[in-house]
């Protein structure tokens, strides 16, 4: 593109590279820092003297972590939640998006349903009615409560994204199929879905990340720690405790805790699944988002 490289242009390049590297560095900093803390000694962590390198390197936190059965239980619940949640999302999203990607001309009920769906995204009665609903359906303490409640709130956005992607597929494809006598199911499954891998991968990734990261519903719908998904489990460890409501013996037990290094180890392990998944899906979500959202 640019043939001659002037000195100023070269300096410009270098400045940009340096800035980009610096910014990228800040993005891995939290990961790095957590790792450093998790490998440090308890006292160093309590004293706050760790910066970028472990102090008194040791593996105690990870050894302790291995004996923490609740951590792994919660990890497993989160995995279940992600698989069920993303699976359901993968099935329901294209089924909703395809009819809704039609114009009102082709599908008369389209606008009413579209606005109803949007409406559900914006209005809610708060946590208590949600809690009552889940209770009536006997879903308390079930991973399905997390899958269904959280899913219902995020699916709308995914549907919108997919609608936009579908709309950008060449109209001629569908028309040709119609001429051949294809029905809507055939068009959706044989034509649209195979062409929509980028957007479906993208909404699946969104769904995976959402279900992995969400913590509040675990706190609300699970009555016992053994049912907590991983983020809820970590959140309650990190949140501070209110000593004013406590008796002296509770406080005594509290003083034995405060385990930053173990927390760091848990946080780090909790990051791993996401770290593993997203680079592989990167290629898809770049296409999925851009094609789904912007029509130039």
């Amino acid at each position, binding site marked *: 593109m640019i043939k001659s490289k002037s000195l100023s242009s070269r300096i410009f390049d270098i400045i940009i590279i340096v800035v980009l590297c610096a910014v990228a560095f800040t993005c891995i900093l939290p990961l790095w820092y957590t790792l450093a803390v998790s490998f440090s000694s308890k006292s160093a962590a*309590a*004293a706050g003297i760790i910066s970028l390198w472990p102090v008194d390197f040791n593996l105690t936190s990870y050894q302790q972590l291995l004996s923490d059965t*609740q951590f792994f239980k919660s990890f497993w619940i989160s995995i279940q939640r992600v698989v069920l949640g993303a699976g359901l999302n993968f099935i329901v999203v294209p089924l909703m998006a395809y009819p809704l990607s039609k114009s009102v001309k082709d599908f*008369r*009920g389209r606008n009413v349903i579209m606005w109803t769906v949007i409406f559900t995204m914006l209005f809610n009665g708060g*946590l*208590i009615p949600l*809690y*009552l609903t889940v*209770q*009536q359906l006997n879903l308390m303490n079930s991973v399905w409560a997390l899958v269904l409640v959280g899913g219902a709130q995020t699916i709308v956005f995914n549907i919108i994204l997919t609608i936009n992607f579908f709309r950008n597929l060449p109209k001629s494809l569908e028309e040709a199929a119609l001429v051949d006598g294809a029905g809507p199911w055939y068009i959706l499954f044989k034509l649209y879905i195979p062409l929509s891998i980028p957007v479906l991968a993208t909404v699946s990734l969104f769904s995976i990340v959402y279900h992995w990261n969400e913590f509040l519903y675990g*706190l*609300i719908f699970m*009555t*016992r*720690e053994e049912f907590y998904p991983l983020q809820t*489990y970590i959140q*309650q*460890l990190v*949140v*501070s*405790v*209110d*000593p*004013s*409501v*406590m*008796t*002296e*013996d*509770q*406080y*005594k*037990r*509290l*003083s*034995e*805790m*405060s*385990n930053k290094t173990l927390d760091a180890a848990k946080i780090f392990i909790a990051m791993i699944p996401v770290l593993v998944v997203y680079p592989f899906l990167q290629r898809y979500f770049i296409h999925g988002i851009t094609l789904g959202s912007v029509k130039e």
Partner: protein
Amino acid sequence: MKLKGKFVAFVVLLLLLLLAACSSETASNDDSEENGTEEPSNDGKDADPFGAYEEAITISIGQEVDPTDTSLTDGDTPLDNKYTRHVKEMLNIDVEHAFTASPSNYDQKVSLAIASNDIPDAMVVGPIELRQMVEADQLADLTGVFENYASPAIKEIIESTGGVALDSVTFDGKIMAIPNAQASADGVHNLWIRKDWLDKLGLEPPKTVEELQEVARAFVEEDPDGNGEDDTIGIAGPDASNKLYANFLESSNNLYGFDGIFSALHSYPGYWLEDDGEPVYGSILPETKEALGTLRDMYAEGLIDREMGVREDSAESVISGKTGIFSGPFWMPYGPITDAIRQNPDANWQSYAAPLDANGDYTPHLMTPTNSYVVVRKGYEHPEAAMKILNNLVAHESEHDAMEGGGGPGYYPIRLVYAPADEMEVTTVALREVLDGTKQPEDFYDMPSYKLIHTDVDTIFDAKLEPYDNMNIEYWNIDSNHFTRAYSALVGTAPLVDSEIKGVKSLIYYQTDTMESRWVNLKKLEDETFLKIITGAAPLDTFDQFVEDWKQQGGDQITEEVAESVN
């Protein structure tokens, strides 16, 4: 179009089905409530406070479980441990968990249970929840249960509060919950000071607020820990989960607050006081403005921890040896002090009845003996089971430590704290008498409502080294298992025994009607304004605006209600 109609019909059908499901559910709830109104007979004919059920019964409870706690051993769980086994063995009651929650989420779970009208058979709640539940008619009337089933020990302890405990659970003449009652020592916030720092800098323990400021200044500026760095904190401040001062609803166990400084200036924010026979709220009085001014100056000068209100846990800086002064009740050795001393055996933390007021009197605010309650669900078949569980607790609490298996006492189902009002003071005096040889341990063996005194007098020589009348840290065996308890009694409680306490009580320690809807927001206004004033984020005169706002947003109305309720 036809199909659209069908679809609409389908949706309507679905809606109807779901509504039917919901309403039938409500209907059945109503049924059970109606059944529940026929209270089980508590005529007391065969009432046995400690009797085991012939056939095992089940009670489902809400249980607080600290996720960071690792004290349970050998495969014990919050549901199956020495406490639940003890309840089963003694009373033939099976405990189930309707929910468990970490201490910071327990309130949220209780709130959801109340809101959804699906409450456990029994659980521990605070005063706000109690009122809400009484109003929602969710609770069983425990009048008969209390009269017939409360053990003599519990009755005696509750009576020692002079009616306060029972008043707080009596609605329309009915007892709607079982109150706790605790040693009043929890409500006096003494100053804990590093005596080794005082000695090193050649200072005397402070008596007045001015002297306290001088000591704090020296602690901040003169490098008392001798590491050559300017890293020491004078006076610790409340952390994110503590309060500036205890208040009439939570009147005890406030750590790292400024209770003592307020009291010494005769300011009692958060308390209902009497002024010319009329109730007034302490936070809006001129004394409080003055005290806030004093604290504001101290903060500006750096005498108070800069990070107050933000720290996750102020204990950390005490343990790491950076803090020189903090406020807290007698049991601070169970808090940060034991850890601090184990980290640095020279850290000579002593407790003082200070600061004193202008007349040289010690005038702390006093606590309510009651702050938590066991409630029983309306319609639960065995309301007396909750009472029996508590009877069993009080009767056998001192044996629990010795029982097989780990786990802190918090795992006892629906545990309430029961202690005679003067429990700690009596213990301290007893220990002193045993130490100086004027009495023998055996003299204190027969005091059943003082549950721990037996162990205390037996083990004191394990924790305390000679000379027995010198409480400095070098004369203690800090590795003893009994050190924490003994240090709490002999050092932590000493100021309560040795000084004359001219304490101030709140007129009420419970909520009135309007408070229910308004108090939380008024309290928030108060907390935020005061915190900003102290940290210098707002000018001192913001106080006047606060008083206006407070009165206008329901404060005046509440004051009237308080007047009605005390007269």
